[in-house]
């Protein structure tokens, strides 16, 4: 019964979102755009962490990689920002392949830590390779005059990654990712090529952050190592997904939207407490609702338990 409501409901939401920027003042459009970005980041992270069980603490590494790739293409080669961002995503994905092959051999906590260090290492490289990145001075990009275009770019990226998440979760491929998360050794012994599955999931999860990293750079017209490799970005991805419901399609969306709204409203006024607030939320989620909002919703019966979504 609920199914009949979902698809048209989603269509309505999409239509509204598509039309909104023409009616809203710029700053609200910008806010929505950032929300789309966070939802995209959280959903991407969810694919490697929620579906496959490899929790990465440094996914900002791919965001920053995409941002820098796109920024360099735009400033040095005059590439169009859309193309540049796509290339940013491709570069992030290409880097993810060998990286994943190496790092995904590490179990749980070790993998998490290794990714954390990776983002930090990328930041160090961006800071040090001054001839390429201008180091701490950052890169200036030509101004993005059309906010609506960026809005749609982010929005489409978000819709694509959510759609992809849904396709994966309802497929055999997704089922195998869940098997890996549940018991990797058993999955391996059942004939599942775990390396292939893990690395491909990791690569997918790196692509989208790379792309929106490019959009971000274009939108802000300036990036520097600290802003795009910031731990708070990685932390944000984790907490948004966990809060919303890790391993579900709706989880990252709910968490992304809610936390971006709260962040804008509340913590923008108290920037010093941003980290602490996230920290407290992480503690609460881990102790009392590790399955996030989606699990609460499920236990209340608002959503049928059989739904993976």
């Amino acid at each position, binding site marked *: 019964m609920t199914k009949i409501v979902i698809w048209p409901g989603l269509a309505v939401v999409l239509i509204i979102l598509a039309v909104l920027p023409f009616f809203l003042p710029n700053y609200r459009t910008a806010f929505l755009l950032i929300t789309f970005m966070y939802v995209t980041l959280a959903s991407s992270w969810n694919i490697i962490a929620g579906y496959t069980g490899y929790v990465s603490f440094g996914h900002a590494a791919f965001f920053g990689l995409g941002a820098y790739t796109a920024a360099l293409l735009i400033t040095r080669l005059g590439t169009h920002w859309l193309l540049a961002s796509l290339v940013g995503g491709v570069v992030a994905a290409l880097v993810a392949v060998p990286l994943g092959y190496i790092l995904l051999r590490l179990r749980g906590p*070790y993998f998490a830590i290794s990714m954390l260090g990776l983002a930090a290492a990328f930041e160090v490289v961006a800071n040090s390779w001054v001839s390429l990145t201008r180091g701490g001075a950052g890169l200036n990009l030509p101004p993005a005059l059309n906010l609506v275009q960026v809005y749609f770019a982010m929005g489409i990226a978000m819709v694509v990654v959510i759609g992809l998440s849904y396709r994966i979760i309802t497929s055999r491929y997704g*089922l195998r990712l869940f098997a890996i998360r549940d018991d990797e050794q058993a999955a*391996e012994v059942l004939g599942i090529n775990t390396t292939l599955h893990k690395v491909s999931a990791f690569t997918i999860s790196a692509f989208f952050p790379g792309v929106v990293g490019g959009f971000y750079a274009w939108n802000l017209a300036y990036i520097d190592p600290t802003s795009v490799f910031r731990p708070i970005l990685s932390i944000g991805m984790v907490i948004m997904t966990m809060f919303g419901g890790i391993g579900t399609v709706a989880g990252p969306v709910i968490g992304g939207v809610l936390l971006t709204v709260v962040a804008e409203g509340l913590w923008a006024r108290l920037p010093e407490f941003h980290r602490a607030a996230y920290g407290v939320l992480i503690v609460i989620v881990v102790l009392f609702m590790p399955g996030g909002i989606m699990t609460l919703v499920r236990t209340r019966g608002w959503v049928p338990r059989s739904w993976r979504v």
Partner: protein
Amino acid sequence: MAPVLRINRLRKHFGGVAALNGPSFAVEAGTITGLIGPNGSGKTTLFNLITGVLDPDGGDVLLNDERITGWPPHRITERGLARTFQITRVFGKMTVLENMLVVPHRGGDAHAADLATELLERVNLYDWRERYGAELSYGQQKLLEFVRALMLEPNLILLDEPFAGVNPTMVQTILDLIRSLRQEGKTIFVIDHAMTVMMGLCDWLFVLDMGELIATGPPAAIQADERVLEAYFGRGSAGSASPARGGLPSPPSADEGRVRA
């Protein structure tokens, strides 16, 4: 009859402990072969080496005369080998049917669904197909793990303690399943401690103690073998002071921070 599985001087140690000290033997095709021995004798380690979960420190494993030593598990299953675990490792958060369908099937997804249905019906789990793995009773989980392994359509099936902790009715179900598989020409290699069952089930037995093969033969011969009695009950079996060897834990897998790629 050609041996479907051949072990050549397989060695494995963990730290200073030699879990397997170079045993060699062959499992004949179409038989139900048993592997017995006191706890800690290396049986599960042997299974882990055969299935590619661990790499040996020396020696070889041959499957149908093909050297599979050091192969990753998913490659070995392609060659027709499947296994179950001592403690059931059913995917608890997936449904019974999903547990079956998650296994990669050669014929493609559509065929997988048919095979899954057939196998589930065979063990009376078809009605439970929408239930989560975690909801099943222990015995049902053991059955699920068994038929899940059969989704690979293997020629050689390794069963690690299929009868452990299972009620007598279930034991019978499993026995029937094993025998019908042999009827189909498959080979079954079983580890278990339920002696009466093993003696009645197996065509041939291998006995492991402290990582070495100490006896081999049909059940009747094994039951009378002195070395076997000593291994299980200690030197001078009857009323000796040495403690029963039944309770020693198997060597740890000792890879804390790494999964096998």
